[in-house]
């Protein structure tokens, strides 16, 4: 992917797009032939495809130095309605970038993203994101942070308040509705971040390490709440996580990303039936799946150099 400096005209387009559109464009044909074969449906499923990503390339241009960092490199992925897909990979490999691209927050330079068969070219209410950083609005109290998405869609204040109180209970923050974010602990902030997304009740839920700041007990509680919610209404979820056990426990499929730039190393189907209980963790099958995933990432880390 190291490309020589293009002539000025290409450079201009490059700059206009904000990132390396032009450079990537040149790779068009190469990639088409290369990728189309790859895109076999690994696990046949009769549910409709909710989220479809094809040959996604995302890079960042540093306007000052003129450097581009390619974070996501030709990733293709289909997620079906009601499916729970986890993504694991090394720190800095491009997971958040991938998620943000699906959310429509980061422009991609090549490939396409479709939700419900419609091309994504910006954020939309069909998707909600739990960000890696809590990024709460510091001037809004907990309750108003949770109802942010609802207020945007024009829900009446009374109704929104009611919903907020439901989610405040769900994330075990009863009594903190009227606190400002800076008065919360790190884990509490992350839970508010989670509630903000859940409250919107979107078709596709994009979670970026939603439980990272939580202790084991609270984490399990929240995982169960999420599982219950998803199983009840059949939400489509893409979750980035660092806990392999969490990925296996919650997901239908675990996607393993390579070191940066991210591409898919493996796509593993989790064979346990639903509803699942925390108990499966102790099964031999669970453990062997976990160590399988671990070994794939580790192998790639060793080969791939820099983390």
């Amino acid at each position: 992917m190291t490309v020589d400096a293009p002539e000025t005209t290409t450079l201009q387009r490059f700059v206009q797009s904000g990132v390396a559109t032009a450079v990537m464009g040149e790779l068009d044909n190469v990639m088409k032939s290369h990728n189309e074969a790859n895109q076999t449906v690994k696990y046949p499923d009769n549910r409709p495809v909710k989220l479809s990503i094809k040959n996604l390339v995302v890079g960042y241009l540093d306007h000052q130095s003129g450097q581009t960092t390619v974070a996501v490199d030709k990733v293709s992925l289909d997620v079906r309605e009601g499916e729970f897909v986890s993504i694991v990979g090394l720190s800095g490999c491009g997971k958040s970038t991938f998620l943000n691209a699906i959310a429509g927050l980061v422009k991609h330079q090549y490939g396409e993203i479709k939700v419900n068969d419609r091309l994504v070219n910006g954020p939309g209410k069909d998707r909600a994101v739990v960000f890696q950083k809590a990024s709460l609005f510091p001037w809004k109290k907990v309750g108003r942070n949770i109802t942010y998405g609802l207020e945007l869609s024009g829900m009446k204040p009374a109704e929104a308040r009611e919903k907020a109180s439901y989610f405040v209970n769900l994330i075990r923050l009863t009594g903190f509705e009227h606190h400002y974010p800076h008065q919360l602990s790190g884990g509490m902030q992350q839970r508010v971040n989670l509630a903000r997304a859940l409250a919107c009740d979107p078709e596709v839920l994009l979670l970026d390490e939603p439980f990272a700041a939580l202790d084991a007990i609270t984490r399990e509680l929240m995982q169960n709440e999420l599982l219950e919610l998803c199983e009840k209404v059949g939400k489509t979820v893409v979750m980035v996580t660092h806990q392999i056990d969490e990925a296996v426990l919650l997901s239908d499929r675990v996607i393993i990303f390579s070191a940066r730039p991210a591409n898919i190393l493996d796509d593993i189907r989790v064979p346990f039936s639903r509803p699942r209980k925390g108990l499966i963790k102790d099964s031999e099958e669970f453990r062997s799946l976990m160590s399988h995933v671990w070994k794939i990432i580790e192998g790639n880390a060793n080969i791939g150099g820099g983390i």
Partner: protein
Amino acid sequence: MSKVTVFPKSKAAKRQKIISLMLGSSVIIVFLIAWELLFQFKLVNPLFISAPSRVVLAEISIIKDGTLLKHFIVSAKEFGFGYVAAIIFGFPFGIMLGWFKLLKASFGPFIAALQATPRIALMPLFIIWFGLGITAKIVVVLLSAIFPLIVNLQVAMSTIDPDLVHVARAYGAGRWQIFRSIALPTSLPFLITGLRLAAGRGLLGVIVAEVFGGSEGIGYMIEYAGSTFQTDKVFAGVLVVAIVGISLDVTLDRVGRHFDRWRSDTAVH
């Protein structure tokens, strides 16, 4: 929740307000006393520099004979309209300049030129366009007060936290909603600063405008008293303006702090 103790609300806040008030007043009072002493010990010439005691007497006399009220109403009207107009035009314009880079590139230099253009050179133009009545004065106030608003809000837009914008966009916020839910709270300190500067500038503007033309208003009163060496009356007029200035400033500062109360109290030092 069993470990939360509640104290009578806002007593601390009230106490703080009182302390602030006392401190602020005492500095001014010390200044006034020093001034009075200078006068009493004949260290200043009362012909050009009055003394607090004499200013108070002059103030009382112009209050009694209704002069002050008459002029005050005129000036207040001019200032009020001009200030509000400055907000109405300056606020959205500043925001837009900060928001749209092309707009800023286009109009930035023009605004800078306008800001630095001596009003004095444009007086004939002013008269031709706006006459000699209240309109002209409102325009002078507007032109004095608008630049702090434009410049401050423009810069405010560049300090918006991009993470929060990401959040808003992810939740489907449109431009207007991003503006309301992020740009506005972020720009609040800038807005308040702009409003405070604009208030000070606007007050100067109204006085200047009345000095340059017109036969009513505090500025006219000051100018007339000045040209006839009634220094006490000059300072009586200045005192009124200063009091209005302080009131506006304190009010705006308080409003700003009210809306900024979400900031943690962490002492900086």
